[in-house]
């Protein structure tokens, strides 16, 4: 059972499958390896299988097939309470009938730790999340953000090597959420804890994680660091799901020297980088980030194809301008430009020409 594997793999999913009803798979052939100390986020729409994966790792669900290993040891048959994994729940799950200090003391008590040691650890953990003076209160007397900190402290107080977080910031308002995102990553890195974080909020995933696993349809669509995920999505789902994105559809005319010539459905030609397309004639969906679109003729590269566009709407958003265009029949083509002194403010009805670096235009599966 306990077959040790590669040295830097701390958490491993190997060919894991999960089905609840015996008819459909919620998780299909999941393979994932995490080194120690990594902050990994499972991101995906609801029903994509990310929470199921987390629950299998925690031990609340059993894998239908495959192996889950922790520090090289298969944990399929180890009950949750023996896995030593800290967990933060979506609703915090602070025990309402215990004080904050009792909540934190609970995991230490069940580990038969002495009283003085317990008190010391509880105090340290509460200080760590800046809740040192709240030990005597009940969870209901705390605000959402405070409960969140306590839940975090409770998951960490028994010093687990792995901490799982299931959408822990979902119930907080935006400002608090951003503050907590920072604090959680900071703590995780400071303590060197391996963290698996589940969210459906891509901003959260991008700002917090070392690596992000994008889930859809029971599979990991792409597993990569945030910048790579954003800038080099490997398929159109990831491109769509992460960040804002313009798509145009067409057919590959030619591929050579790492360049693909794409003929859009309206007949226009553009230059792109082929990602998961292989041969001419294949349908493709090209993806261009709004901030990589250029309409200042002076800055366009020589020799690349440009497209005609009509300005439909100009939205002033403070730090940026957001302009909606009609491009090759697509009326939702967005460009974002920085609000700089020399920036041109486009007017609705204006006819312009747009272009981009071929590397910024990614030809993906249709």
């Amino acid at each position, binding site marked *: 059972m306990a077959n040790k594997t590669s040295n830097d793999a701390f958490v491993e999913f190997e060919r894991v499958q999960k089905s609840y009803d015996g008819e459909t798979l919620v998780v299909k052939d999941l393979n994932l390896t995490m080194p120690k100390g990594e902050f990994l986020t499972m991101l995906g729409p609801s029903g994509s299988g990310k929470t199921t994966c987390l629950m299998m790792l*925690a*031990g*609340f669900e059993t894998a239908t097939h495959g192996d889950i290993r922790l520090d090289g040891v298969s944990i399929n048959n180890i*009950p*949750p*309470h*023996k*896995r*030593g*994994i*800290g*967990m933060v*729940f*979506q*609703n915090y*799950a602070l*025990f*309402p*009938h215990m004080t904050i200090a009792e909540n934190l003391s*609970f*995991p230490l008590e*069940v*580990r038969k730790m002495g009283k003085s040691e317990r008190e010391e650890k509880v105090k340290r953990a509460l200080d760590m999340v800046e809740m040192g003076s709240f030990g005597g209160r009940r969870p209901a007397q705390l605000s959402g953000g405070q409960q969140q900190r306590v839940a975090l402290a*409770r*998951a960490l107080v*028994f010093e687990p090597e792995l901490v*799982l977080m299931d959408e822990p910031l979902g119930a907080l308002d935006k400002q608090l959420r951003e503050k907590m995102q920072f604090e959680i990553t900071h703590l995780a890195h400071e303590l060197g804890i391996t963290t698996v974080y589940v969210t459906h909020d891509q901003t959260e995933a991008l700002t917090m994680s070392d690596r992000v696993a994008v889930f859809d349809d029971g599979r990991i669509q792409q597993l990569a660091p945030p910048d790579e995920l954003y800038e080099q999505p490997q398929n159109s789902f990831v491109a769509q799901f992460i960040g804002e994105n313009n798509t145009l559809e067409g057919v590959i005319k030619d591929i050579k020297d790492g360049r693909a010539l794409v003929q859009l459905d309206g007949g226009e030609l553009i230059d792109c980088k082929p990602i998961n397309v292989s041969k001419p004639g294949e349908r493709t969906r090209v993806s261009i980030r709004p901030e990589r679109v250029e309409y200042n003729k002076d800055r366009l590269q020589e020799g690349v194809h440009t497209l005609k566009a009509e300005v439909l709407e100009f939205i002033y958003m403070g730090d940026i301008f957001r302009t909606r265009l009609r491009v090759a029949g697509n009326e939702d083509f967005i460009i974002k430009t920085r609000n700089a002194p020399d920036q041109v403010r486009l007017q609705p009805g204006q006819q312009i020409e747009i272009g981009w670096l071929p590397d910024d235009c990614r030809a993906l599966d249709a």
Partner: protein
Amino acid sequence: MSDTAKSGPVLAADGTPLKRSLARALRMQKMRALMLIAPLLIFVLVTFILPIADMLFRSVENQIVSDTLPRTVVALEDWDATSGETPGEAVFKAMAADLQEAAAAKIHTRVGSRLNYETPGISSLFRKAGRKVKKWDVEGDGPFKEMFLEVDDGWGDPDVWRTIQTYSPRLTNGYFLNAADMQKGPDGPEMRPENERIYWVLFQRTLFMSLVITASCILLGYPVAWILANLPSRTANLLMILVLLPFWTSLLVRTSAWKVMLQQQGVINDTLVWLGLVADDARLVMINNQFGTIVAMTHILLPFMILPMYSVMQTINPSYLRAAKSLGATNWTAFWRVYFPQSVPGIGAGSILVFILAIGYYITPELVGGTKGVFISNRIAFHISSSLNWGLAAALGTILLVVVLILYWAYDKIVGIDNVKLG
């Protein structure tokens, strides 16, 4: 204080002091709220508070003696009850005058019945004397002592006169003494003879059995409520119908069904004999005793335990158990330290419901209780409907009410009444 005195009261826009303005606005709100609850308030007052007040009053009320026999009560004031001698002619003369008036109003037998609760035989003394006294001339005839003794020798018994004297005050503690197995002796309250003591035993038994019934409801109901709360709602609703099914069956039918099940020639005994677990001539006695009462009442009251427990358990998020396990607790520790404390309010609510219902139950104990499974409420019902001793019934009821309130108070001290939830 001094600030407002200096600057004067704060004024509202129209110049009236702000405080008065506010009070008026609030008074309107209060009036409206009061109007809304008025129908309920009146309903509760008429159907609940007044009857209870009436009952409390009946348990000490005793005007009938001094109202019906005013002259006799005055005449008896000088008589020494401990002398062991029949009172003098003056008392008999007063009694003749009182009885003649009472007999004309046909109320003489009523006071006879009242005094008969204290000393057997007085009822017929009054009934017989009432018939004769109508023809007497209360001014001219005499001596009345002989005339009364002619009607019945019982009038010569000093005990009869002592009873009249003892129960002449307008208020009495006699009913309460009786309810506590005591009586008014010549030297104040004393215990009744051993062979007449019954209420103390019945109070103890009622409390004990109600507690046992409550405990068995908890033991049987908790797992059921737990399963219901953790099943998908469709299945849970289906099972809930099974839990509620007994509610839709008549109480008498259910109790009779238990008789059929538990009696010696009943289903369970037949099965045990058939299985060879019990000899045919040693069939188990499971009905007409405490066991039968506990079984039947647990069954009848179980839904009252399951429902509040279920609705409280439904509100307990399953993630608490998961959290506890992820923190290293075994299944049992997670249940005992995390789930169970959160379900206590449901147990509390269910227990209070079941206990209070059980303590006042009388139909089921009457039918399956035999001699050892009878509750105090059976005696209360008896005194209300058969012996017509409503004063004693009221005293027993008052004691029961006080006992329940004391237990409620104790429960509040130990568990805390805020810790009771119906969901």
